[in-house]
C-alpha cells in the first residue's frame, strides 16, 4: 500500500458523502495537473497525504451534521458499556476469591465476554449498515474503528488483569463482528432484491 492509497482511503473515510466527488476530484485534479508534473511522484504523494491529514478535522466536523452522531452513539453502546460491566464483574469475582495469586480468567469467562461483545458489536454493525444514507459503508468502517478504539481504552483502564491473548481476542473481535454484522445485512438486502 502506497502513501497515495493511504491518503485516498483516509479521505474516503472522513469526507461527507455529499462532498465526496467534489473533494476527492479536486485533490486528484491538483495532484495530476499541478503537483505531480512539478515535484515528482514521491513528493506529490506526500503532498496528497498532507492535504488529507490537514483536512480530517474540518471534514469530520461536517460529517457531524450527518451520520457521525449515530455512529458514535452506536459505538458507545456496543462496546464500552457491556465490556466495562463484564470487566467490573470479573474484578468483583476476583476480589472475593482468597489465595488468588495464580488465579486467571477461566475459558468460560473469556467465552462469555467474547460472545457478549460479538453480539453487541455485530448488532451495531447491522444497524449502521441500515442507516438511510448513501455513505453507509463509510459509517460501518468508522464504527468498526470506533469500536476498536473503545475496546483498547476499556481494556487499558480495566480494574481486572488483562492477559495479552484475551486483549488480542477482543481487539480482533469487536471490529470483525461489526463488519460481519454489516455484511450480513448487505447479503440479506441483496437476497431480497434478487427475490423481488
Amino acid at each position: 500500500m502506497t502513501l497515495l492509497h493511504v491518503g485516498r482511503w483516509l479521505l474516503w473515510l472522513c469526507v461527507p458523502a455529499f462532498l465526496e466527488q467534489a473533494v476527492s476530484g479536486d485533490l486528484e485534479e491538483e495532484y495530476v495537473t499541478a503537483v505531480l508534473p512539478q515535484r515528482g511522484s514521491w513528493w506529490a504523494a506526500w503532498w496528497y497525504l498532507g492535504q488529507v491529514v490537514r483536512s480530517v478535522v474540518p471534514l469530520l466536523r461536517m460529517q457531524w451534521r450527518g451520520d457521525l452522531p449515530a455512529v458514535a452513539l452506536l459505538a458507545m453502546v456496543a462496546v464500552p458499556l457491556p465490556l466495562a460491566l463484564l470487566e467490573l464483574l470479573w474484578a468483583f469475582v476476583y476480589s472475593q476469591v482468597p489465595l488468588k495469586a495464580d488465579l486467571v480468567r477461566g475459558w468460560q469467562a473469556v467465552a462469555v465476554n467474547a460472545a457478549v461483545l460479538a453480539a453487541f458489536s455485530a448488532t451495531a454493525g447491522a444497524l449502521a449498515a441500515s442507516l438511510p444514507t448513501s455513505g453507509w459503508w463509510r459509517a460501518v468502517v468508522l464504527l468498526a474503528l470506533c469500536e476498536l478504539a473503545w475496546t483498547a481504552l476499556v481494556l487499558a483502564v480495566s480494574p481486572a488483569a488483562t492477559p495479552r491473548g484475551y486483549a488480542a481476542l477482543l481487539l480482533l473481535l469487536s471490529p470483525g463482528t461489526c463488519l460481519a454484522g454489516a455484511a450480513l445485512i448487505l447479503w440479506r438486502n441483496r437476497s431480497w432484491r434478487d427475490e423481488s
Partner: protein
Amino acid sequence: MPKGDALGEFELLVLLAVVRLADDAYGMRVRQELADRTRRDVSIGAVYATLDRLEVKGLVRSLLGEPTPERGGRAKRVFALTGEGVQAVNRAQADLARLTEGLTLPLPSLKPGGGS
C-alpha cells in the same frame, strides 16, 4: 444583523475568491486563489468547510459541474454568490472603509511586545 450572520475574516476571503473566479469557483481553484493572493496555504478541507458554512448561511449556492478525466471522472461543485452574499461582501467592504477612513495605511510597524 444577528451575531451569527457576521462574516469571519476567512469567510470574507473565501467569498472574495469566489467572486474573482466567477464560473471557475470550485474548491481547488479557491484554494489556489487564496494561496496566490494571500499566501495562505489552507487545506482543501478547510476551504470546503467554509464554503459549506457559507452555503448554510445562504451567502453562496453550489451546482454540480461536469466530470472530467483529470478528476478521475468526478464532478466539480462550482460555487457562486447569492444576493445575500453580494450584500454581505459590500457591507464588509463598507465597514472596513469607514473604519480605515482618515488612517495612514499601512500602519507603522511596532516592535514585538507592543511598545512603540
